[in-house]
């Protein structure tokens, strides 16, 4: 029984190694990889700048609203702190539990 198992496993490895022979995959030149890396890094940088801009814009809008509320409606401002604190605690707890998707293996 164990011999059969080992034979099947060996057969599987042998058959899979044949696939490499059937499909030829020439490795592209280093220039191709350099272009790919440079383009992707450029795209990522542009994306980061865009996201930072939207983040700053949103933060500015929120801060303006908070400032207006603090001056005009101080009681409402204090009441708002309770859900904000609860959301912050929940976010931190959730974030710590969740592993980064591509952290490492």
């Amino acid at each position: 029984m164990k011999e059969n198992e080992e034979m099947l496993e060996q057969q599987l490895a042998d058959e899979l190694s044949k696939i490499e022979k059937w499909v030829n995959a020439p490795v592209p030149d280093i220039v191709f990889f350099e272009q790919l890396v440079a383009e992707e890094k450029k795209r990522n940088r542009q994306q980061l700048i865009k996201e930072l801009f939207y983040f700053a814009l949103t933060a500015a809008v929120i801060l303006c609203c908070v400032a207006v509320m603090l001056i005009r409606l101080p009681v409402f401002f204090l009441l708002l702190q309770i859900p904000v604190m609860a959301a912050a605690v929940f976010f931190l707890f959730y974030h710590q539990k969740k592993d980064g998707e591509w952290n490492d293996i």
Partner: protein
Amino acid sequence: MEEKDLIQQAKKGDQHALSLLLQQNYSILFHYLLKITMNRPLTEDLVQETMLKCIQKIGMYQEKAKFSSWLISIASHLYMDQIRKQKTEKKYNEQFKQARNLKWKAKTSNEEWSELLDALSLLNEEIRIPLVLKHYYGYTYDEIGTLLKIPTGTVKSRTHNGLKFIREELGDHERKRGDA
């Protein structure tokens, strides 16, 4: 320059070092994806996607495992994500198309497409991936669990079920041949 040094340089932002790393691991990545997808065009797309993901996330690579294993992990997740997006009906059609694609390649190489590969192509990718990683690449159950982010017990049961399915399929073929 050794791989370790290249990784260090790449993490610091050296584009040439990262390009060299990708070039050195291109073949491993391509052949791994070909074995699990059994489809060349899909493999080419996934290789490209994996490399882009690697460029984005190189700073997060913690060097606990080999660079090629990290690429295999990314590629496996990208493939499974893509499969999950497909509808069940479409998925089965794709499965047959995939096998046809490689069968043709086998024929042009004057090789025979074995019943074992036929059975392997019929397996669900969630079973096929751990099976290939275990019995072709020689990863341990624990390593596969870490790579695919699934418990070790699940890896064991999936590889066991995969082998069982292949054995049954091969048995069916033998019986059919005997009847004929």
